[in-house]
């Protein structure tokens, strides 16, 4: 009789008790106004919309719906700030405001983390250990640039562009606000920022920090709303620059909208990164890297390693280890300190993920999901693997933006490079091998703006981030991140 292959049992009688992060110190206003010219103001048509907790579907707060009139007010306030002392201020003084913002965020880090997890659904482990620390680090990094811009671009002086309209997504709400605001301020610009419709609360909390930091009125305006509000920012004739992070589809709409207007823009768009595992890779670290590449933040990550390429000789080993590892991922309450996978950000996103998984199965793909039981209330999706898929499957070609990994195997280096680049995107990539020379070869060959070698999904304020091809243009972070906010003269 053939023996079944040995299996590991992760369902033990030693269960982790719930370990919820406390929320008693958190202040969420029942109703939020728009932050324009240093004050919280009622939206011009008096309309508000609800923001909910995706883990419970309960309303957290009401936020103002900014109209085109409100956008105009915000742009005027920003213009006034640009014409006023802000742009002419000594860089060192401007830098002090930014340093101050960084410090205040550190002081309120836990409150920010908890609100981020409540409003967006991401696990507190990530908002506490990744998002919020990176937010303050980002302000800290760019604060120091404010009085050193003459060293950034050899042979050139810099001037501010003026008013930057910034539109950010819901996957890293406060972190994306920091990525946009910090370099804009360091270079002397003023900002009109619109957070995503489903995750406005931490940006509004940031507005309170800006007040506390005594940032001059109008330098940063934060207005909430949906697509129409964003469009009004893009279309406003007195906005000098658009910075957008979001889907490639909307990015292209923005390119068309600003065509011929002389507005500058930077775009951080979609991705479908190849994560390539060679047979000489550090296997167990690679498996963990796969988990980080696709299940981090429920897979709501533009640079997620959503296409896994495993060298054929180790494919069975990797997939078996990955399945074991998936059994230990804890799915549930984002505020529980032990949660690995939180809630899907919205009903709309959940429907999209479900649609893709159904489609992938219809196209002949085989799925495997972790057996962890999902909560009843709220939006949830189990970590999912697709095998028996190829480059021609839509789940391999299109960005799903969820915890869904498409696995393919390969035999030769040429084959995997060709397949890795056979996609309109070029945001990121991963390569795993113990051989140094191979790392350089592959990381050069992958046409993408960020390549993680023997790691994945690492971020740092000093490290530029941004894509090739349809993944966008321009870089955020590092010295490169100053470029989109200055004129070189």
């Amino acid at each position, binding site marked *: 009789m053939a023996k079944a292959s040995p299996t590991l049992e992760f369902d033990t009688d030693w269960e982790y008790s719930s370990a919820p992060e406390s929320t008693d110190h958190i202040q969420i206003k029942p109703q939020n106004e728009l932050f324009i010219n240093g004050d919280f103001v009622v939206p011009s048509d008096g309309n508000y919309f609800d923001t909910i907790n995706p883990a419970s579907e309960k309303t957290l707060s009401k936020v103002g719906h900014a109209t085109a009139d409100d956008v105009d007010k915000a742009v005027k306030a920003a213009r006034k700030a640009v014409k006023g002392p802000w742009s002419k201020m000594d860089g060192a003084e401007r830098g002090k405001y930014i340093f101050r913002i960084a410090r205040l965020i550190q002081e309120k880090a836990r409150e920010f983390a908890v609100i981020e997890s409540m409003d967006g659904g991401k696990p507190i482990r990530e908002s506490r250990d990744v998002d919020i620390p990176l937010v303050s680090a980002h302000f800290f990094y760019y604060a120091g640039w404010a009085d050193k811009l003459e060293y950034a671009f050899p042979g050139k002086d810099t001037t501010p562009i003026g008013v930057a309209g910034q539109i950010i997504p819901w996957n890293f709400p406060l972190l994306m606000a920091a990525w946009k605001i910090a370099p804009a301020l360091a270079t002397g610009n003023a900002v009109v920022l619109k957070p995503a419709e489903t995750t406005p609360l931490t940006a509004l909390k940031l507005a309170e920090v800006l007040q506390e930091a005594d940032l001059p009125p109008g330098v940063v305006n934060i207005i909430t709303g949906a697509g129409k509000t964003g469009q009004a920012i893009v279309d406003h004739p007195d906005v000098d620059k658009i910075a957008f992070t979001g889907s490639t589809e909307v990015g292209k709409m923005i390119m*068309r909208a600003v*065509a011929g207007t002389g507005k500058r823009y930077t775009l951080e768009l979609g991705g479908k990164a190849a994560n390539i595992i060679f047979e000489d890779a550090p296997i167990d670290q690679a498996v963990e890297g796969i988990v980080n590449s696709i299940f981090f933040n429920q897979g709501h990550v533009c640079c997620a390693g959503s296409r896994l390429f495993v060298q054929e000789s180790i494919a069975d080993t990797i997939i078996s280890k990955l399945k074991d590892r998936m059994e230990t991922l804890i799915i549930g309450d984002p505020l529980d300190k032990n949660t690995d996978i939180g809630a899907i950000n919205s009903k709309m996103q959940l429907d999209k993920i479900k649609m893709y998984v159904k489609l992938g199965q219809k196209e002949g793909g085989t799925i495997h999901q972790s057996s962890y039981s999902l909560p009843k209330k709220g939006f949830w999706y189990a970590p999912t693997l697709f095998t028996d898929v190829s480059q021609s499957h839509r789940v391999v070609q299109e960005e799903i933006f969820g915890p869904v990994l498409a696995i393919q195997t390969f035999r030769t280096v040429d084959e995997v490079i060709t397949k890795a680049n056979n996609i309109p995107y070029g945001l990121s990539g991963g390569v795993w091998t113990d051989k140094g020379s191979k790392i350089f070869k592959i990381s050069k060959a992958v046409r993408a*703006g960020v390549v993680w070698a023997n790691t994945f999904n690492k971020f740092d304020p000093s*490290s530029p981030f941004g894509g090739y091809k349809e993944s966008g*243009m321009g870089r955020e972070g590092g010295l*490169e991140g100053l470029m989109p906010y200055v004129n070189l003269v």
Partner: protein
Amino acid sequence: MGKREDIKKTYKLYIGGKFPRTESGRYIKWTDPKNSTYVNVCRGSRKDFRNSVVAARNAFTDWSSRTAYNRSQILYRIGEMLEGKRSQFMDELMLQGASKNAAENEINRAIDRLIYYAGWADKYQQLFSRVNPVAAPYFNFTYTEPTGVVAAIAPDDSSLVGLVSIMAPIIAGGNTVVLLASELKPLCSISFAEVLHTSDVPAGVVNILTGYRDELIEHFSTHMDVNSIVYCGNDPDDIKTIQENAALNVKRPVVYADEDWMDQKNQGPYHILNNLESKTTWHPIGL
């Protein structure tokens, strides 16, 4: 003895290291400002452009992986070859309406610009690359890579120094390019292809078309295998068209509106940077 008749030159296209006539069979009758001479210039078509992009794409992998030193030497070689063909370019520039003095100045500037970018080809990387001090045990570095295949609408009023000023930074950065020559003054743009052809520039790295801007601008800006579009000019409709079409595949649109290409200020590493991407690589530091 009777008078000897001149041999007149046929101005053709330059695609993939060959000099074909336009596949369309059409031509543009070009007449010099004095109405003394005329030339039938190829009226490059959409398909000529398509063939050029194929050639540029095929050349990209090799050209972008050449050593910087090699690209530098090839740019220098172009300068050398142009120096050697001075008289031909003098004739053509003057035929296109330049004074003798202006023609000489333009040739000098074009040669110097090639030498200038030859010098940059192995240095801009050091200016635009860096090691980033990330707060974790990782070695993190950023360096530049070429954007890919560039489609470039060369300046209309400057057929030699303008063309060279656009082309040199693009190929110095490791890109390959399809250039649309000046419609107004096409002659020396095409003769410049002959310089390229004898300068060790691999086939397909530079492709030069002649034709109507109005006809080709749409194709230059909509092709899905073009990564970047450079436009020289100040026509607002052209600029809008190019920027709108760039959205199709998120091409990088670069506009040089009114640059005086004779001016030394309009050169520099930032012209190279316009067609570069930066790539950042992370690697753990451990045992």
